[in-house]
């Protein structure tokens, strides 16, 4: 069930990419999210949890960036895109989120 991707595919998400979350079940407490996918459980930070929630029905990368900026504000000491891709990369690698493959920057 986990869509195993190689590392290079997980970085460099284009602005018009569509992101979609995948889980078999999840719990939310205090902003954190516990996600079950297959036999694996993942404990997500507040920002990752918000990203997952935003992408259940699919969301564009730029719309997600705007939403996270509204909620959490500018990250400290790093650009929004770098920070966002740091958050998304593990979600993509674990198959908790997929990105429309045709729009991934090579």
């Amino acid at each position, binding site marked *: 069930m986990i869509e195993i991707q190689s*590392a290079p595919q997980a970085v460099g998400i284009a602005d018009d990419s569509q992101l979609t979350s995948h889980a078999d*079940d999840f*719990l939310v407490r205090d902003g954190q999210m*516990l996600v*079950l*996918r*297959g*036999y694996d*459980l*993942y404990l997500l930070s507040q920002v990752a949890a918000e990203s997952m929630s935003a992408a259940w029905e699919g969301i564009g990368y730029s719309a997600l960036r705007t939403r996270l900026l509204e909620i959490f504000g500018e990250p400290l000491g790093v650009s929004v895109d770098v920070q966002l891709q740091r958050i998304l990369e593990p979600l993509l690698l674990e198959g908790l989120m997929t990105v429309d493959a045709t729009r991934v920057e090579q």
Partner: protein
Amino acid sequence: MTSAEPHPFTVLIVGMSGTFTAPVAERILCSLLRERSVAAGVIDVQSAGLEEPGGREIEPQARVALESHQCDRGPYVSQQVSAELLERADMVITGREAVRSQLVARFPAVERITFTMSEIGHLYAEVAAMAPLVEHARMLNAARQNASVADNYDLSSDERTPAAVDEMFAKVERSCHWLAKIWVSMAPGVGDESWDSDSDQQSVDIDAFGVAVRVVCDGDDPARLAAAVRAAFSRTLATSPREPESIVHLAVRHDAEDRTWASSRGWTTYRSVPEALHYVTSTVTVRAIDARAGQLLMVHAAGLAGPDGKVVGLIAPSGTGKTTLARTLGAHYGYVTDETLAVDLHGEVFPYPKPLSLVVEGGTGVKQQRSPDNLGMLRPPEGLRLSRLVVLNRIPDVAREPMLEQIPLLPGLADMAPHISYLPQLPDKLHDLARLTESVGGVWRLTYSDASSVVGLFPELEAA
């Protein structure tokens, strides 16, 4: 592979080229499994190469090794590792650490299911992975951080002298024998069919948290084997006749050819009674877990009960002192189980006071199975209910007072998760787990160094 749907336990063996050690290990493992009546639909073993493209034949030295091990020498065409192959795998095994590192660098998501052959042998020796096979990689991974693996199977890629190659393939064969024996004991359906026998079989009926499991004993001395099973499982013997939900055909045969014959006829066959007891404990436990998938929460935990039937579940990876703690507390409180705590979604606990698996000094990986009756452990009262879930954090060799603290719910559930069987099969999955856990006051963590220091703390655990 992490799909919760039933599927074969799928193992992928990865080598650098995919034409040397990996296909040899694949063929030896397949040969051992098929000899023991394990079909590819139950355990599927494949091999692949990390660097070389697929479509190539096995190397001549590897072919010679297959001939010497009397394995399938039929046509072999290599395949290259791919995301699709890894996606299907429940466990990935490499011969060398260098291969494991490169594989994980390229496919980070497989890190937790990828082991070197040496590592997995070491972990299986330490961890009693009494769980469905598809859950083994997670259990072994949870134990990996505390394990120190001294030696590995590294062989310099340019060291292809006949002696070096022979030595390496001998190591591979030993590992494959060890893995096959463990996997066969917990493979679903193996040994549950009835076959003709030339001896007088004896049956032992066991009640494993409400699951009726019949162990049919055969071999050189069925009466002696059955007596040993009855003695070890004395606390779990069925008290009234019931149609078994699962049947295990168990045999001890001293003669190697007899063992091969019996294995090919579907018997789980061992060379000695202690070895048979060691493996049948896992077999019975996993059969019962399989039978209650989706009905009970089954936690790999010790369970001890106070006089009023309140049960404290003590959760920890195998090999970290859980059985020692159960044995120590069991002299003062009712022994419910040392391995599988089975609870329905309303909090009723189904006891499984199985034999305790005790390490034998200087042993061979076979643990002694001792009945709780022989260890002076107390019986719990009737009407058991879950009272507390405690994650154990044992810090050995550091004298300290035990410390009990509550963990926030989600991190607590995440700590428990690697120790729960068939969580995805529960009707409401995480919500069932969370409801039950919150009904007993959430998840607690007990940090301790010595089991005896926990005895006085037990009333506090019950009422934490």
